[in-house]
Protein backbone atom coordinates (compact mmCIF):
# COMPACT_ATOMS: atom_id res chain seq x y z
CA UNK A 1 0.00 0.00 0.00
CA UNK A 2 2.74 2.40 0.97
CA UNK A 3 4.60 1.58 -2.22
CA UNK A 4 1.48 2.22 -4.21
CA UNK A 5 1.10 5.64 -2.62
CA UNK A 6 4.73 6.47 -3.29
CA UNK A 7 4.23 5.43 -6.88
CA UNK A 8 1.18 7.68 -7.11
CA UNK A 9 3.05 10.62 -5.64
CA UNK A 10 5.90 10.18 -8.08
CA UNK A 11 3.64 10.07 -11.10
CA UNK A 12 0.78 12.28 -10.04
CA UNK A 13 1.22 14.99 -12.69
CA UNK A 14 1.10 12.34 -15.42
CA UNK A 15 -1.98 10.79 -13.86
CA UNK A 16 -3.66 14.19 -13.75
CA UNK A 17 -2.92 14.74 -17.44
CA UNK A 18 -4.36 11.33 -18.31
CA UNK A 19 -7.59 11.92 -16.40
CA UNK A 20 -8.11 15.46 -17.67
CA UNK A 21 -7.36 14.44 -21.26
CA UNK A 22 -9.91 11.63 -21.08
CA UNK A 23 -12.56 14.22 -20.23
CA UNK A 24 -11.33 16.68 -22.85
CA UNK A 25 -11.34 13.97 -25.51
CA UNK A 26 -14.90 12.96 -24.68
CA UNK A 27 -16.15 16.56 -24.51
CA UNK A 28 -14.59 17.50 -27.82
CA UNK A 29 -15.96 14.49 -29.69
CA UNK A 30 -19.38 14.77 -28.09
CA UNK A 31 -20.34 17.70 -30.30
CA UNK A 32 -19.29 16.23 -33.63
CA UNK A 33 -22.08 15.83 -36.21
CA UNK A 34 -22.33 12.42 -37.88
CA UNK A 35 -21.29 13.89 -41.21
CA UNK A 36 -17.81 14.55 -39.92
CA UNK A 37 -17.20 11.18 -38.29
CA UNK A 38 -14.90 9.84 -40.99
CA UNK A 39 -12.68 12.93 -41.26
CA UNK A 40 -12.62 13.15 -37.49
CA UNK A 41 -11.53 9.54 -37.11
CA UNK A 42 -8.89 10.18 -39.72
CA UNK A 43 -7.75 13.38 -38.01
CA UNK A 44 -7.53 11.62 -34.65
CA UNK A 45 -5.57 8.89 -36.42
CA UNK A 46 -3.04 11.50 -37.54
CA UNK A 47 -2.79 12.97 -34.04
CA UNK A 48 -1.85 9.68 -32.41
CA UNK A 49 1.02 9.72 -34.88
CA UNK A 50 2.62 11.81 -32.13
CA UNK A 51 4.20 8.46 -31.25
CA UNK A 52 6.79 9.57 -33.83
CA UNK A 53 8.38 11.68 -31.07
CA UNK A 54 9.15 8.50 -29.17
CA UNK A 55 10.60 6.97 -32.31
CA UNK A 56 12.83 10.01 -32.83
CA UNK A 57 14.05 9.87 -29.22
CA UNK A 58 14.79 6.14 -29.53
CA UNK A 59 16.56 6.68 -32.83
CA UNK A 60 18.58 9.61 -31.54
CA UNK A 61 19.69 7.74 -28.45
CA UNK A 62 20.73 4.58 -30.27
CA UNK A 63 24.41 3.73 -30.05
CA UNK A 64 26.16 4.03 -33.37
CA UNK A 65 27.47 0.46 -33.06
CA UNK A 66 24.16 -1.10 -32.06
CA UNK A 67 22.90 -2.16 -35.48
CA UNK A 68 19.64 -3.74 -34.23
CA UNK A 69 18.63 -0.58 -32.37
CA UNK A 70 19.56 1.55 -35.36
CA UNK A 71 17.49 -0.52 -37.78
CA UNK A 72 14.50 -0.91 -35.48
CA UNK A 73 14.60 2.79 -34.61
CA UNK A 74 14.87 3.75 -38.27
CA UNK A 75 11.87 1.55 -39.07
CA UNK A 76 9.95 3.14 -36.17
CA UNK A 77 10.68 6.64 -37.51
CA UNK A 78 9.49 5.66 -41.00
CA UNK A 79 6.30 4.04 -39.71
CA UNK A 80 5.56 6.93 -37.35
CA UNK A 81 6.07 9.45 -40.15
CA UNK A 82 3.73 7.46 -42.39
CA UNK A 83 1.09 7.67 -39.67
CA UNK A 84 1.51 11.43 -39.20
CA UNK A 85 1.98 12.60 -42.77
CA UNK A 86 -0.40 10.12 -44.38
CA UNK A 87 -3.00 10.78 -41.71
CA UNK A 88 -3.01 14.55 -42.10
CA UNK A 89 -2.93 14.43 -45.91
CA UNK A 90 -5.81 11.93 -46.12
CA UNK A 91 -7.86 14.00 -43.69
CA UNK A 92 -7.17 17.14 -45.69
CA UNK A 93 -8.28 15.41 -48.88
CA UNK A 94 -11.54 14.37 -47.28
CA UNK A 95 -12.21 17.84 -45.89
CA UNK A 96 -11.28 19.51 -49.15
CA UNK A 97 -14.36 17.87 -50.61
CA UNK A 98 -16.58 19.32 -47.94
CA UNK A 99 -15.27 22.82 -48.52
CA UNK A 100 -15.43 22.69 -52.29
CA UNK A 101 -19.18 22.80 -52.52
CA UNK A 102 -19.58 26.16 -50.77
Amino acid at each position, binding site marked *: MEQLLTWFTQHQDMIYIVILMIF*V*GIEVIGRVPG*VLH*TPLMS*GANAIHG*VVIIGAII*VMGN*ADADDITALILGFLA*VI*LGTLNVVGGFVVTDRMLEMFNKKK
Partner: protein
Amino acid sequence: MNIMESLLLLIYLIASITFILGLKMLSNPKTARNGNVVAAVGMALAIAGTIALYTDASGDHLGNHIWIFGGLAIGGVIGTMSAKNVKMTAMPQMVSIFNGMGGACAALISIIEFKHIVHDFQPELYAGGGYTYFSTLDGTSLLIIMAGLIIGSVSFTGSMIAWAKLDGRLNDYAFNGQHIVNILLLLVTIGLTAMIIILRPEETITFFYAALALSAMYGILFVLPIGGADMPVVISLLNSFTGIAAACGGFLYDNTAMLTGGILVGAAGTLLTVLMCNAMNRSLLNVLIGSFGGSAQAGASGSGAQGNYKEMSLSDAAVLMSYSSKVVIVPGYGLAVAQAQHACHEMEKILTEKGVQVTYAIHPVAGRMPGHMNVLLAEADVPYEKLKEMEEINDEFSSVDAVLVLGANDVVNPAAKTDPTSPIYGMPILDVESAKHVIVNKRSMKPGYAGIENELFFRPKTSMLFGDSKKVLQDLIAEIKNL
Protein backbone atom coordinates in the same frame (compact mmCIF):
# COMPACT_ATOMS: atom_id res chain seq x y z
CA MET B 1 16.91 22.57 -16.28
CA ASN B 2 18.46 24.56 -19.07
CA ILE B 3 16.83 26.97 -21.49
CA MET B 4 16.60 24.48 -24.33
CA GLU B 5 14.76 22.01 -22.17
CA SER B 6 12.28 24.68 -21.03
CA LEU B 7 11.76 25.76 -24.62
CA LEU B 8 11.00 22.18 -25.62
CA LEU B 9 8.45 21.88 -22.80
CA LEU B 10 6.83 25.08 -24.06
CA ILE B 11 6.70 23.63 -27.58
CA TYR B 12 5.07 20.47 -26.23
CA LEU B 13 2.49 22.62 -24.45
CA ILE B 14 1.71 24.44 -27.68
CA ALA B 15 1.50 21.11 -29.54
CA SER B 16 -0.91 19.72 -26.94
CA ILE B 17 -3.11 22.80 -27.30
CA THR B 18 -3.13 22.48 -31.09
CA PHE B 19 -4.20 18.84 -30.78
CA ILE B 20 -7.17 19.76 -28.59
CA LEU B 21 -8.01 22.79 -30.71
CA GLY B 22 -7.61 20.77 -33.89
CA LEU B 23 -10.01 18.08 -32.73
CA LYS B 24 -12.47 20.74 -31.61
CA MET B 25 -12.30 22.52 -34.98
CA LEU B 26 -12.69 19.18 -36.75
CA SER B 27 -16.07 18.91 -35.08
CA ASN B 28 -17.55 21.79 -37.10
CA PRO B 29 -17.94 21.59 -40.89
CA LYS B 30 -16.86 25.24 -41.28
CA THR B 31 -13.61 24.97 -39.36
CA ALA B 32 -12.78 21.31 -39.95
CA ARG B 33 -10.16 21.77 -42.62
CA ASN B 34 -8.34 24.46 -40.68
CA GLY B 35 -8.51 22.29 -37.59
CA ASN B 36 -6.62 19.58 -39.39
CA VAL B 37 -3.97 22.12 -40.41
CA VAL B 38 -3.72 23.47 -36.86
CA ALA B 39 -3.05 19.98 -35.49
CA ALA B 40 -0.56 19.29 -38.29
CA VAL B 41 1.37 22.48 -37.50
CA GLY B 42 1.50 21.53 -33.83
CA MET B 43 2.79 18.11 -34.80
CA ALA B 44 5.48 19.60 -37.04
CA LEU B 45 6.57 21.92 -34.21
CA ALA B 46 6.77 19.01 -31.77
CA ILE B 47 8.82 16.92 -34.20
CA ALA B 48 11.22 19.75 -35.06
CA GLY B 49 11.52 20.73 -31.39
CA THR B 50 12.33 17.19 -30.34
CA ILE B 51 15.08 16.82 -32.92
CA ALA B 52 16.65 20.19 -32.14
CA LEU B 53 16.16 20.56 -28.40
CA TYR B 54 15.72 17.17 -26.75
CA THR B 55 18.29 16.27 -24.13
CA ASP B 56 18.39 13.06 -22.11
CA ALA B 57 19.01 12.72 -18.38
CA SER B 58 22.75 13.24 -18.79
CA GLY B 59 22.23 16.34 -20.91
CA ASP B 60 23.20 14.79 -24.23
CA HIS B 61 21.47 15.81 -27.42
CA LEU B 62 20.00 13.33 -29.87
CA GLY B 63 22.42 11.85 -32.38
CA ASN B 64 21.96 9.88 -35.58
CA HIS B 65 20.49 12.87 -37.39
CA ILE B 66 21.04 11.28 -40.77
CA TRP B 67 18.95 8.27 -39.73
CA ILE B 68 16.24 10.50 -38.28
CA PHE B 69 15.96 12.77 -41.30
CA GLY B 70 16.24 9.78 -43.63
CA GLY B 71 13.33 8.07 -41.89
CA LEU B 72 11.27 11.26 -41.89
CA ALA B 73 11.94 11.77 -45.59
CA ILE B 74 11.11 8.20 -46.61
CA GLY B 75 7.97 8.07 -44.46
CA GLY B 76 6.94 11.56 -45.56
CA VAL B 77 7.25 10.83 -49.27
CA ILE B 78 5.53 7.43 -49.14
CA GLY B 79 2.82 8.78 -46.83
CA THR B 80 2.07 11.82 -48.98
CA MET B 81 2.08 9.87 -52.23
CA SER B 82 -0.18 7.09 -51.03
CA ALA B 83 -2.55 9.52 -49.32
CA LYS B 84 -2.74 11.70 -52.44
CA ASN B 85 -3.26 8.86 -54.86
CA VAL B 86 -5.73 6.73 -52.96
CA LYS B 87 -9.24 6.63 -54.39
CA MET B 88 -12.08 8.02 -52.31
CA THR B 89 -13.58 4.54 -52.02
CA ALA B 90 -10.37 3.14 -50.59
CA MET B 91 -10.16 5.84 -47.90
CA PRO B 92 -11.20 3.54 -45.02
CA GLN B 93 -8.49 1.04 -45.92
CA MET B 94 -5.94 3.84 -46.05
CA VAL B 95 -6.88 5.11 -42.59
CA SER B 96 -6.61 1.55 -41.34
CA ILE B 97 -3.08 1.18 -42.78
CA PHE B 98 -1.86 4.47 -41.31
CA ASN B 99 -3.34 3.46 -37.99
CA GLY B 100 -1.49 0.15 -38.14
CA MET B 101 1.77 1.98 -38.86
CA GLY B 102 1.33 4.01 -35.67
CA GLY B 103 0.71 0.83 -33.71
CA ALA B 104 3.78 -0.85 -35.17
CA CYS B 105 5.82 2.25 -34.33
CA ALA B 106 4.71 2.06 -30.69
CA ALA B 107 5.54 -1.66 -30.54
CA LEU B 108 9.01 -1.06 -32.02
CA ILE B 109 9.72 1.61 -29.41
CA SER B 110 8.80 -0.90 -26.71
CA ILE B 111 11.10 -3.54 -28.19
CA ILE B 112 14.07 -1.17 -28.28
CA GLU B 113 13.42 0.14 -24.77
CA PHE B 114 13.11 -3.39 -23.41
CA LYS B 115 16.48 -4.23 -24.93
CA HIS B 116 17.90 -1.16 -23.20
CA ILE B 117 16.52 -2.25 -19.86
CA VAL B 118 17.96 -5.73 -20.27
CA HIS B 119 21.26 -4.26 -21.40
CA ASP B 120 21.54 -1.71 -18.59
CA PHE B 121 20.29 -4.02 -15.85
CA GLN B 122 22.65 -4.06 -12.89
CA PRO B 123 21.97 -7.05 -10.66
CA GLU B 124 24.21 -5.79 -7.88
CA LEU B 125 21.84 -2.85 -7.26
CA TYR B 126 19.21 -5.28 -6.09
CA ALA B 127 21.50 -7.81 -4.42
CA GLY B 128 20.45 -6.75 -0.93
CA GLY B 129 16.82 -5.67 -1.08
CA GLY B 130 15.58 -7.98 -3.81
CA TYR B 131 14.01 -6.98 -7.09
CA THR B 132 10.43 -5.89 -6.54
CA TYR B 133 8.08 -4.12 -8.85
CA PHE B 134 7.25 -0.88 -7.06
CA SER B 135 10.69 -0.41 -5.57
CA THR B 136 12.27 0.29 -8.91
CA LEU B 137 11.76 2.67 -11.73
CA ASP B 138 12.33 -0.29 -14.05
CA GLY B 139 9.18 -1.92 -12.73
CA THR B 140 6.97 0.96 -13.81
CA SER B 141 8.85 1.34 -17.07
CA LEU B 142 8.43 -2.35 -17.80
CA LEU B 143 4.70 -2.19 -17.20
CA ILE B 144 4.43 0.72 -19.63
CA ILE B 145 6.74 -0.91 -22.15
CA MET B 146 4.60 -4.04 -22.06
CA ALA B 147 1.39 -2.03 -22.43
CA GLY B 148 2.85 -0.22 -25.43
CA LEU B 149 4.06 -3.49 -26.93
CA ILE B 150 0.79 -5.37 -26.50
CA ILE B 151 -1.59 -2.58 -27.52
CA GLY B 152 0.68 -1.46 -30.34
CA SER B 153 1.02 -4.90 -31.90
CA VAL B 154 -2.69 -5.73 -31.52
CA SER B 155 -3.40 -2.45 -33.26
CA PHE B 156 -0.88 -3.20 -36.00
CA THR B 157 -1.98 -6.73 -36.92
CA GLY B 158 -5.64 -5.87 -36.35
CA SER B 159 -5.42 -2.88 -38.68
CA MET B 160 -3.67 -4.95 -41.33
CA ILE B 161 -6.45 -7.56 -41.19
CA ALA B 162 -9.07 -4.79 -41.29
CA TRP B 163 -7.30 -3.37 -44.34
CA ALA B 164 -7.17 -6.75 -46.11
CA LYS B 165 -10.84 -7.37 -45.41
CA LEU B 166 -11.99 -3.96 -46.54
CA ASP B 167 -9.86 -4.31 -49.62
CA GLY B 168 -11.58 -7.61 -50.41
CA ARG B 169 -8.37 -9.62 -50.06
CA LEU B 170 -9.60 -11.60 -47.10
CA ASN B 171 -12.93 -13.15 -46.18
CA ASP B 172 -14.49 -13.42 -42.77
CA TYR B 173 -13.12 -16.40 -40.95
CA ALA B 174 -14.29 -17.92 -37.70
CA PHE B 175 -13.78 -21.30 -36.08
CA ASN B 176 -15.48 -22.96 -33.15
CA GLY B 177 -14.19 -21.84 -29.80
CA GLN B 178 -12.55 -18.76 -31.23
CA HIS B 179 -13.74 -16.64 -28.31
CA ILE B 180 -12.13 -19.03 -25.88
CA VAL B 181 -8.88 -18.99 -27.84
CA ASN B 182 -8.98 -15.17 -27.88
CA ILE B 183 -9.58 -14.93 -24.15
CA LEU B 184 -6.84 -17.50 -23.49
CA LEU B 185 -4.41 -15.53 -25.66
CA LEU B 186 -5.17 -12.40 -23.64
CA LEU B 187 -4.81 -14.17 -20.31
CA VAL B 188 -1.50 -15.77 -21.28
CA THR B 189 -0.20 -12.41 -22.51
CA ILE B 190 -1.20 -10.75 -19.24
CA GLY B 191 0.44 -13.60 -17.33
CA LEU B 192 3.65 -13.18 -19.31
CA THR B 193 3.57 -9.45 -18.59
CA ALA B 194 3.31 -10.12 -14.86
CA MET B 195 6.29 -12.51 -15.07
CA ILE B 196 8.33 -9.95 -17.00
CA ILE B 197 7.69 -7.33 -14.34
CA ILE B 198 8.33 -9.62 -11.37
CA LEU B 199 11.37 -11.50 -12.65
CA ARG B 200 14.73 -9.97 -13.43
CA PRO B 201 14.86 -8.52 -16.94
CA GLU B 202 17.66 -10.81 -18.15
CA GLU B 203 15.52 -13.86 -17.36
CA THR B 204 12.49 -12.73 -19.32
CA ILE B 205 13.72 -12.14 -22.86
CA THR B 206 11.90 -15.22 -24.19
CA PHE B 207 8.73 -14.18 -22.36
CA PHE B 208 8.95 -10.77 -23.95
CA TYR B 209 9.05 -12.09 -27.49
CA ALA B 210 6.36 -14.63 -26.67
CA ALA B 211 4.14 -11.77 -25.48
CA LEU B 212 4.89 -9.92 -28.72
CA ALA B 213 3.94 -12.95 -30.84
CA LEU B 214 0.79 -13.66 -28.83
CA SER B 215 -0.50 -10.10 -28.97
CA ALA B 216 0.16 -9.97 -32.72
CA MET B 217 -1.79 -13.22 -32.96
CA TYR B 218 -4.58 -11.78 -30.84
CA GLY B 219 -4.90 -8.79 -33.16
CA ILE B 220 -5.34 -11.14 -36.12
CA LEU B 221 -7.85 -13.45 -34.46
CA PHE B 222 -9.75 -10.55 -32.97
CA VAL B 223 -10.50 -8.84 -36.30
CA LEU B 224 -10.69 -11.91 -38.54
CA PRO B 225 -14.22 -13.10 -37.66
CA ILE B 226 -15.73 -9.62 -37.49
CA GLY B 227 -17.62 -8.72 -40.62
CA GLY B 228 -20.26 -6.55 -42.11
CA ALA B 229 -21.55 -3.57 -40.30
CA ASP B 230 -18.91 -3.91 -37.58
CA MET B 231 -15.89 -2.88 -39.63
CA PRO B 232 -16.27 0.87 -38.89
CA VAL B 233 -16.45 0.08 -35.21
CA VAL B 234 -13.30 -2.01 -35.39
CA ILE B 235 -11.29 0.69 -37.18
CA SER B 236 -12.41 3.27 -34.67
CA LEU B 237 -11.53 0.96 -31.79
CA LEU B 238 -8.08 0.17 -33.20
CA ASN B 239 -7.62 3.90 -33.68
CA SER B 240 -8.13 4.50 -29.98
CA PHE B 241 -5.84 1.53 -29.20
CA THR B 242 -3.02 3.20 -31.08
CA GLY B 243 -3.77 6.40 -29.19
CA ILE B 244 -3.26 4.59 -25.90
CA ALA B 245 -0.09 2.92 -27.21
CA ALA B 246 1.26 6.38 -28.10
CA ALA B 247 0.38 7.60 -24.62
CA CYS B 248 2.46 4.76 -23.16
CA GLY B 249 5.43 6.32 -24.93
CA GLY B 250 4.50 9.60 -23.25
CA PHE B 251 4.71 7.93 -19.84
CA LEU B 252 7.98 6.27 -20.69
CA TYR B 253 9.74 9.45 -21.83
CA ASP B 254 7.92 11.82 -19.49
CA ASN B 255 6.74 13.47 -22.68
CA THR B 256 3.62 15.60 -22.32
CA ALA B 257 2.92 16.00 -26.05
CA MET B 258 2.82 12.24 -26.56
CA LEU B 259 0.74 11.78 -23.45
CA THR B 260 -1.89 14.41 -24.28
CA GLY B 261 -2.09 13.48 -27.95
CA GLY B 262 -2.32 9.76 -27.22
CA ILE B 263 -4.87 9.94 -24.41
CA LEU B 264 -6.94 12.50 -26.29
CA VAL B 265 -7.26 10.15 -29.25
CA GLY B 266 -7.70 7.14 -26.98
CA ALA B 267 -10.62 8.78 -25.17
CA ALA B 268 -12.20 10.35 -28.23
CA GLY B 269 -11.78 7.17 -30.27
CA THR B 270 -13.37 5.07 -27.55
CA LEU B 271 -16.35 7.39 -27.33
CA LEU B 272 -16.72 7.40 -31.11
CA THR B 273 -16.63 3.59 -31.04
CA VAL B 274 -19.36 3.46 -28.41
CA LEU B 275 -21.48 5.94 -30.37
CA MET B 276 -21.18 3.71 -33.42
CA CYS B 277 -22.14 0.63 -31.43
CA ASN B 278 -25.18 2.52 -30.13
CA ALA B 279 -26.16 3.36 -33.69
CA MET B 280 -26.31 -0.37 -34.37
CA ASN B 281 -27.90 -1.15 -31.01
CA ARG B 282 -25.10 -3.49 -30.02
CA SER B 283 -22.78 -3.49 -27.08
CA LEU B 284 -19.07 -2.94 -27.47
CA LEU B 285 -18.43 -6.25 -25.69
CA ASN B 286 -20.58 -8.02 -28.25
CA VAL B 287 -18.42 -6.58 -31.02
CA LEU B 288 -15.20 -7.23 -29.08
CA ILE B 289 -15.69 -10.94 -28.69
CA GLY B 290 -16.31 -11.04 -32.39
CA SER B 291 -19.64 -12.83 -32.47
CA PHE B 292 -21.08 -11.10 -35.49
CA GLY B 293 -19.47 -13.14 -38.24
CA GLY B 294 -20.37 -16.48 -36.69
CA SER B 295 -23.98 -15.77 -35.85
CA ALA B 296 -24.56 -14.02 -39.17
CA GLN B 297 -24.01 -17.28 -41.00
CA ALA B 298 -26.33 -19.12 -38.67
CA GLY B 299 -29.01 -16.46 -39.17
CA ALA B 300 -28.63 -16.57 -42.93
CA SER B 301 -29.27 -20.27 -43.22
CA GLY B 302 -31.93 -20.33 -40.51
CA SER B 303 -34.38 -17.65 -41.46
CA GLY B 304 -33.59 -16.87 -45.05
CA ALA B 305 -36.18 -14.68 -46.67
CA GLN B 306 -37.69 -16.32 -49.69
CA GLY B 307 -40.16 -15.55 -52.39
CA ASN B 308 -40.34 -13.82 -55.70
CA TYR B 309 -38.85 -10.51 -56.48
CA LYS B 310 -39.78 -8.40 -59.44
CA GLU B 311 -37.48 -6.65 -61.81
CA MET B 312 -38.09 -3.26 -63.27
CA SER B 313 -36.99 -1.83 -66.57
CA LEU B 314 -34.82 1.27 -66.72
CA SER B 315 -37.50 3.25 -68.50
CA ASP B 316 -40.12 2.36 -65.90
CA ALA B 317 -37.77 3.49 -63.16
CA ALA B 318 -37.03 6.70 -65.05
CA VAL B 319 -40.74 7.44 -65.48
CA LEU B 320 -41.52 6.63 -61.87
CA MET B 321 -38.89 8.98 -60.53
CA SER B 322 -39.51 11.79 -63.02
CA TYR B 323 -43.19 11.97 -62.15
CA SER B 324 -42.70 11.73 -58.40
CA SER B 325 -42.80 14.82 -56.29
CA LYS B 326 -40.45 13.45 -53.65
CA VAL B 327 -37.58 11.02 -54.26
CA VAL B 328 -35.13 9.79 -51.64
CA ILE B 329 -31.82 8.21 -52.60
CA VAL B 330 -30.32 5.71 -50.14
CA PRO B 331 -26.62 5.28 -50.93
CA GLY B 332 -24.61 2.29 -49.72
CA TYR B 333 -21.30 0.61 -50.29
CA GLY B 334 -22.34 -0.46 -53.81
CA LEU B 335 -22.33 3.20 -54.80
CA ALA B 336 -18.80 3.58 -53.45
CA VAL B 337 -17.52 0.48 -55.22
CA ALA B 338 -18.98 1.57 -58.53
CA GLN B 339 -17.60 5.12 -58.09
CA ALA B 340 -21.11 6.23 -58.97
CA GLN B 341 -21.26 9.36 -56.81
CA HIS B 342 -20.87 11.74 -59.78
CA ALA B 343 -23.51 9.93 -61.84
CA CYS B 344 -25.74 10.00 -58.80
CA HIS B 345 -25.36 13.75 -58.38
CA GLU B 346 -25.98 14.19 -62.09
CA MET B 347 -29.26 12.31 -61.90
CA GLU B 348 -30.28 14.22 -58.80
CA LYS B 349 -29.69 17.52 -60.64
CA ILE B 350 -31.73 16.44 -63.65
CA LEU B 351 -34.58 15.30 -61.44
CA THR B 352 -34.44 18.55 -59.50
CA GLU B 353 -34.65 20.50 -62.77
CA LYS B 354 -37.81 18.56 -63.51
CA GLY B 355 -39.27 19.80 -60.26
CA VAL B 356 -38.73 16.63 -58.24
CA GLN B 357 -37.64 17.13 -54.67
CA VAL B 358 -34.59 14.88 -54.19
CA THR B 359 -32.85 14.17 -50.89
CA TYR B 360 -30.33 11.61 -49.69
CA ALA B 361 -30.93 9.41 -46.66
CA ILE B 362 -27.68 8.67 -44.87
CA HIS B 363 -27.62 5.77 -42.44
CA PRO B 364 -24.95 6.22 -39.76
CA VAL B 365 -23.16 3.00 -40.72
CA ALA B 366 -23.78 2.99 -44.46
CA GLY B 367 -20.63 2.11 -46.34
CA ARG B 368 -17.52 0.96 -44.59
CA MET B 369 -16.97 3.84 -42.20
CA PRO B 370 -19.27 6.24 -40.40
CA GLY B 371 -19.71 9.24 -42.63
CA HIS B 372 -18.34 7.31 -45.61
CA MET B 373 -21.33 8.29 -47.75
CA ASN B 374 -21.08 11.93 -46.73
CA VAL B 375 -17.48 12.11 -47.85
CA LEU B 376 -18.26 10.33 -51.09
CA LEU B 377 -21.21 12.54 -51.98
CA ALA B 378 -19.32 15.63 -50.94
CA GLU B 379 -16.69 14.66 -53.48
CA ALA B 380 -19.37 14.83 -56.17
CA ASP B 381 -20.45 18.31 -54.97
CA VAL B 382 -23.79 17.16 -53.57
CA PRO B 383 -25.01 20.08 -51.42
CA TYR B 384 -24.75 19.54 -47.67
CA GLU B 385 -28.46 20.37 -47.14
CA LYS B 386 -29.54 17.47 -49.34
CA LEU B 387 -28.00 14.91 -47.00
CA LYS B 388 -30.46 13.87 -44.32
CA GLU B 389 -29.52 11.78 -41.33
CA MET B 390 -31.56 8.75 -40.37
CA GLU B 391 -33.58 10.28 -37.49
CA GLU B 392 -34.45 13.25 -39.63
CA ILE B 393 -35.62 11.37 -42.72
CA ASN B 394 -37.38 8.39 -41.15
CA ASP B 395 -40.48 10.47 -40.33
CA GLU B 396 -40.62 11.75 -43.89
CA PHE B 397 -40.65 8.44 -45.76
CA SER B 398 -44.45 8.19 -45.62
CA SER B 399 -44.73 11.24 -47.88
CA VAL B 400 -42.07 9.98 -50.31
CA ASP B 401 -43.13 8.67 -53.73
CA ALA B 402 -40.05 6.72 -54.67
CA VAL B 403 -36.98 5.52 -52.82
CA LEU B 404 -33.92 4.57 -54.85
CA VAL B 405 -31.64 2.24 -52.90
CA LEU B 406 -28.18 2.34 -54.46
CA GLY B 407 -26.04 -0.57 -53.35
CA ALA B 408 -27.25 -0.45 -49.75
CA ASN B 409 -28.57 -3.58 -48.10
CA ASP B 410 -28.26 -4.16 -44.37
CA VAL B 411 -29.23 -0.59 -43.49
CA VAL B 412 -32.65 -1.04 -45.12
CA ASN B 413 -33.24 -4.65 -44.01
CA PRO B 414 -36.61 -4.90 -42.21
CA ALA B 415 -35.34 -8.00 -40.40
CA ALA B 416 -33.60 -5.59 -38.04
CA LYS B 417 -37.06 -4.67 -36.76
CA THR B 418 -39.04 -7.85 -37.15
CA ASP B 419 -36.77 -10.87 -36.81
CA PRO B 420 -35.27 -11.38 -33.34
CA THR B 421 -33.04 -14.18 -34.67
CA SER B 422 -31.41 -11.90 -37.20
CA PRO B 423 -27.86 -10.84 -36.33
CA ILE B 424 -28.73 -7.25 -37.09
CA TYR B 425 -31.92 -7.35 -34.99
CA GLY B 426 -32.32 -4.10 -33.09
CA MET B 427 -30.17 -2.01 -35.41
CA PRO B 428 -32.07 1.11 -36.40
CA ILE B 429 -32.76 1.08 -40.13
CA LEU B 430 -33.95 3.50 -42.76
CA ASP B 431 -37.69 3.08 -42.91
CA VAL B 432 -37.91 2.93 -46.71
CA GLU B 433 -40.93 0.66 -46.61
CA SER B 434 -43.18 3.56 -45.64
CA ALA B 435 -42.58 5.11 -49.04
CA LYS B 436 -44.92 4.38 -51.94
CA HIS B 437 -42.34 2.66 -54.14
CA VAL B 438 -38.92 1.24 -53.49
CA ILE B 439 -36.44 0.74 -56.31
CA VAL B 440 -33.44 -1.33 -55.31
CA ASN B 441 -30.30 -1.24 -57.39
CA LYS B 442 -27.94 -4.15 -56.69
CA ARG B 443 -25.48 -6.07 -58.76
CA SER B 444 -27.21 -9.38 -58.02
CA MET B 445 -29.43 -11.03 -55.45
CA LYS B 446 -26.41 -11.87 -53.32
CA PRO B 447 -26.80 -10.92 -49.64
CA GLY B 448 -25.04 -7.84 -48.30
CA TYR B 449 -21.81 -7.59 -46.36
CA ALA B 450 -23.35 -8.90 -43.16
CA GLY B 451 -24.30 -12.05 -45.09
CA ILE B 452 -28.02 -11.99 -44.46
CA GLU B 453 -31.00 -12.10 -46.79
CA ASN B 454 -33.13 -9.02 -47.11
CA GLU B 455 -36.91 -9.42 -47.10
CA LEU B 456 -37.30 -5.94 -48.49
CA PHE B 457 -36.40 -7.23 -51.94
CA PHE B 458 -39.38 -9.60 -51.94
CA ARG B 459 -41.98 -7.07 -50.85
CA PRO B 460 -44.70 -6.11 -53.35
CA LYS B 461 -43.71 -2.44 -53.23
CA THR B 462 -40.14 -3.24 -54.19
CA SER B 463 -38.76 -3.43 -57.70
CA MET B 464 -35.24 -4.58 -58.46
CA LEU B 465 -32.95 -2.85 -60.90
CA PHE B 466 -29.90 -5.05 -61.37
CA GLY B 467 -26.52 -3.83 -62.50
CA ASP B 468 -23.48 -1.81 -61.55
CA SER B 469 -24.65 1.44 -59.87
CA LYS B 470 -22.69 3.70 -62.18
CA LYS B 471 -23.92 2.01 -65.35
CA VAL B 472 -27.52 1.94 -64.12
CA LEU B 473 -27.40 5.60 -63.12
CA GLN B 474 -25.95 6.67 -66.44
CA ASP B 475 -28.65 4.73 -68.28
CA LEU B 476 -31.29 6.23 -66.01
CA ILE B 477 -29.99 9.72 -66.75
CA ALA B 478 -30.28 9.02 -70.49
CA GLU B 479 -33.81 7.68 -70.04
CA ILE B 480 -34.92 10.63 -67.91
CA LYS B 481 -33.50 13.07 -70.46
CA ASN B 482 -35.47 11.34 -73.22
CA LEU B 483 -38.79 11.63 -71.46
